[in-house]
């Protein structure tokens, strides 16, 4: 039994290493891209909303970055999810190993990139004369776990179902874009009109992204969004795992 767990861990390590290595293998700037991408987005939104539309907010650049970095983790993982089983068809058809490890390593790998990008957030805090707070020590691990659970859950759903319903590939991209604008990332939740405010917690990503931002900007963790996002995380994980379990024995048939 013990050697089995050891093998699981080794599988996760090896597959994550592979993803990390492959991702930037033949690009010159390598890891910098995982920062460059959200930074470029932040730049675009900064021009559109701060300079052109003149949103009334202080430190808007910092605000954008604190929300875009964790979002980037979620959307990167979900957008590649439809392909993770398809891309490993030859393995799935031959080797009997726990297939859910593949999407897990994808999410893990994006999480590592997110962690590596936190220093950029710190840099921006300093630019705006703020500083990191001690609450990060427990806040970051806590939110990391919640987002890992939630992203892994959604990733399992998308990657499993896509084998049987290939249209999901296109839908996934549309949905992540839609949810990006439904989630208070480029705008604060306080700007949402009163009559729509009650909808905000129907979006599983909202309480999580709000928590990240308040942790990064103010060093605070509000209990209500924290509890809601944790609940969403657990539900997404359980639901995703259930779907995966129902479908996984047929993976080798349809690939």
């Amino acid at each position, binding site marked *: 039994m013990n050697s089995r767990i050891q093998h699981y861990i*080794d599988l996760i390590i090896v597959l994550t290493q592979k993803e990390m290595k492959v991702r930037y293998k033949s690009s010159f700037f390598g890891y910098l891209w995982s920062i460059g991408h959200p930074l470029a987005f932040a730049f675009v939104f900064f021009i559109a909303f701060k300079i052109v539309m003149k949103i009334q907010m202080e430190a808007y650049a910092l605000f954008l970055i604190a929300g875009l970095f964790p979002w980037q983790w979620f959307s990167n993982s979900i957008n590649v999810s439809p392909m993770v089983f398809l891309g490993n068809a030859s393995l799935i058809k031959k080797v009997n190993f726990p297939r859910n490890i593949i999407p897990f390593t994808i999410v893990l790998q994006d999480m590592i990139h997110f962690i590596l990008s936190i220093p950029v957030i710190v840099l921006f805090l300093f630019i705006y004369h703020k500083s990191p707070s001690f609450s990060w020590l427990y806040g970051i691990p806590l939110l990391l776990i919640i987002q890992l659970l939630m992203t892994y859950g959604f990733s399992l759903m998308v990657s499993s179902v896509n084998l049987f319903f290939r249209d999901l590939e296109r839908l996934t991209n549309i949905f992540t874009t839609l949810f990006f604008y439904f989630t208070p990332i480029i705008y604060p939740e306080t700007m949402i009109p009163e009559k729509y405010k009650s909808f905000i917690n129907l979006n599983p990503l909202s309480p999580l992204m709000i928590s990240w931002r308040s942790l990064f900007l103010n060093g605070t963790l509000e209990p209500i969004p924290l509890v809601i996002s944790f609940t969403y995380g657990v539900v997404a994980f359980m639901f995703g795992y259930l779907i995966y379990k129902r479908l996984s024995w047929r993976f080798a048939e349809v690939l």
Partner: protein
Amino acid sequence: MSEPVIIFDNVSKSYPLYHHITGGIKNFLLHLPKAVSSIKNSRFEALCNISFEVYKGETLGIIGRNGAGKSTTLGLIAGVLKPNKGRIIVKGRISPLLELGGGFHPELTGRENIMLNGVLLGLTRAGVKKKMNMIIEFSEIGDFVDQPIRTYSSGMLARLGFSVVSSLDPEILLIDEILAVGDMEFQKKCLDKMMGFKKSGVTMVFVSHSMEDVKMICDRAMWIENHSIRMAGTPKDVVLNYSG
């Protein structure tokens, strides 16, 4: 012969034909009742009531035309497919031999791929590290081992793949049409290695189109045609009937 380690008991396997939906939503909705019933009823019969046993230490060769159900049989043994009917019992650690480059990533170096493949096939990281030099030596690819494998020739890929498998310590080895690649010398080396496995008591299931290899390696052969067993017996007899 000792106890059986692979038992197929009246096994049937059929695949639903999913392509009926891929005609598009318009077609699907226009012919809804017909489409639904065709999804329900159209199944592709890959294996039909197959029963056989493989004994410990035995080498079984499976021959037959393309699409006869040979790879499905291997998939069922490996446990990646489930039978629709019947019972399959497999006792022991299974090592599948991957097809050319399967499970390799073209951007990674030979060394990194050995690690990846070794762990996927059931070794621990420490185990692969210990065997790394042996594997590289067996593969004879020399300095190329630190190059990304997209630069490899197909023969080199086959060597690398087989070298990883040769370092495993399997109880049951599944081989699907692998010896066809690589140069003569390496093919001979692979055959030697397989003979070595055989001597040390590894059970092997060997799918091949090379009748020479089947005659040379296998203790018993099975001919699958039209999704059921046409004939089973000594490799010589089965090959003779199959070829004639």
